């Protein structure tokens, strides 16, 4: 007999249970569950706050408008996390970008068309530098990017301790432009974020670079031995994250039309949380960028629900956020849990 005809047939198990096991084994399950839970949560909000106007489509679209920058930042973080790393400099980089652009536009009088590529370039270069150090000197990403967190936040303050308002007309129009969608409208920021999402999806699933990111995250040592440009991939991933953070910073700047040295403090945790809630493993190599979208939406929805509740005092806000997060994660976990193998 030859080896060829040893096709394994699944032994003695009902079709139903096999479908269940197949579903449980499917890597897309966490994303599906997150999406389903998000919808359930949204439905809950609808029932509870129906006569407060929660049901209006615009409230849903506001989730994108109000979290567009977070989505972009989280997409950058997805690349890094997928490759098995972590980027803590996201929040600082966003703050820095708002400050840097505001300073260039307002204080130095540079036109926006020049400032935007400059800011993106600086962000990408910052990410590149961190990636370079992480790869070439084999220092843990957590620490390098933590230093990045300090550095960029520090640079914000070096530029100016005070916030800088942006009066530039083009910024104003960009910020206030709304694109009608029939049922509601979206801001430029939200559209850019969705475009970035599409691009990230394409890159991760249809380019060699994207697959290398997964490979490096799956097993760095193996990726190296398989002859993949491991260093290049790692550096590129941090560059992407730096770029995304800078872009998120620009969107954030559009959102609030100012630069402030204390903007976006701690947003890296939001970004990481969004990625993880979306079903990506922090150990790398597994996850989908679509999950990140739902992660961001869930975080945004929690915030919205709390404002709609409107009766919570400061600390109850925090507690409620924690409890909702916890409930979400526990339900998600029970729904995706496979039998222990």
């Amino acid at each position, binding site marked *: 007999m030859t080896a060829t005809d040893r096709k394994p047939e699944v032994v003695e198990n009902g079709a139903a249970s096999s479908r269940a096991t197949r579903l449980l084994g499917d890597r897309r399950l966490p994303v599906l569950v997150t999406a389903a839970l998000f919808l359930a949560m949204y439905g809950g909000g609808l029932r509870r706050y129906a006569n407060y106007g929660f049901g209006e489509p*615009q409230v849903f679209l506001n989730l994108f408008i109000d979290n567009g920058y977070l989505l972009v930042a989280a997409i950058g973080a997805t690349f890094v996390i997928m490759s098995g790393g972590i980027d803590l400099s996201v929040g600082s980089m966003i703050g820095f970008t708002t400050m840097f652009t505001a300073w260039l536009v307002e204080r130095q009088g540079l036109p926006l068309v020049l400032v935007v590529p400059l800011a993106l370039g600086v962000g990408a270069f910052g990410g590149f530098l961190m990636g370079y150090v992480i790869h070439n000197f084999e220092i843990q990403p957590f620490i390098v990017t933590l230093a990045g967190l300090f550095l960029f936040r520090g640079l914000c303050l070096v530029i100016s301790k005070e916030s800088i*308002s942006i009066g530039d007309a083009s910024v104003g129009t960009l910020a206030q432009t709304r694109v009608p969608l029939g049922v509601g409208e979206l801001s430029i920021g939200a559209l850019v974020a969705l475009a970035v999402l599409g691009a990230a999806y394409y890159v991760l699933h249809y380019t060699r670079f994207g697959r290398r990111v997964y490979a490096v995250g799956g097993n760095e040592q193996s990726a190296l031995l398989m002859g993949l440009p491991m260093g290049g991939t790692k550096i590129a991933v941090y560059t992407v994250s730096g770029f995304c953070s800078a872009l998120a910073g620009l969107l954030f700047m559009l959102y609030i039309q100012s630069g*402030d*040295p204390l903007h976006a403090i701690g947003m890296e945790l939001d970004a990481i949380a969004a990625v993880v809630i979306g079903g990506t493993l922090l150990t790398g190599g597994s996850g989908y960028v679509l999950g990140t979208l739902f992660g961001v939406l869930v975080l945004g929805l929690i915030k919205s629900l709390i404002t709609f509740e409107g009766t919570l005092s400061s*600390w109850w806000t925090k507690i409620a956020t924690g409890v909702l997060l916890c409930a979400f994660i526990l339900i998600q976990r029970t729904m995706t849990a496979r039998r222990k193998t």
Partner: protein
Amino acid sequence: AKEDGKSSDSPGGGSKTLTLGFSQVGSESGWRTANSDSVKSAAKESGYTLKFSDAQQKQENQISAIRNYIAQKVDVIAFSPVVVTGWDAVLKEAKAAKIPVVLTDRSVETSDESLYVTLVGSDFTDEGRRAAKILEKVLDKAGHKGPVKIAQLEGTTGAAPAIERAKGFKEVMDADHADDWKIVVSQTGEFTRAGGKQVMAAFLQSNPDINVLYAHNDDMGLGAIQAIEAAGKKPGKDILIVTVDGVKDGFIAMSEGKINAIVECNPLLGPQLMDVVQKVKDGEKLERWIKTEESDFLQDQAKDALPSRKY
């Protein structure tokens, strides 16, 4: 979450009671909490429905809260801006929805004056100036001679009160005391007691000859007092202390002679705010800036003022 059973009686502006949407900065300090409490209790007294949200120090949260208030069609929106810049877009939305906006606590920079009705609050820069002025009195009283070496405990770097309190103080100092006063060290104590204590301990090591401390809030001052005592010096005597805010613990320390003067920054804006809200709703004309009533206290006033401190 809790059941909001009577939600049906107040949605939208249709019913009789007035709905106020209030977005607070956060709950980063006792001062802020007193501020929130004051607003809440005043709203209750006035019989308004209050929609309260806490932005956790994040402007984006505040913006989305305001958007939500707009969506909920509240009657008046009030908020304490996290930062001064970047409000145009959302305020324009409010204006478009014909919801009047009242600022509390601090102002915003905006291109269009009509975006908000009025500001109820204090002026941090002025507090800095007042601190410098009262320091003159303190020095006088203590009979201080010779150069004045000041250590400054700043608030959180980049926060508006920290910047402006430093600015106002420096303004007066540069104008009136350019040659005899000098800020020898200045660091951030993050507005906390622990921060104040640690930073002061380090100051006392590197500059043992400091004789005046200006702290941007009471808490840092209280922490610093402990550090001064640990160094074997007497707060209020060897080192003269001026702080801003006027929380209860500060007054206690002042009555014990450990703080020499306090510049009050009053968080109890609630009643004033409700007044303003009522007037806005009634369509009355208001000043652009309604200052809160505040005063400065020296040691001899401490004992009398202490029982009336609420927070």
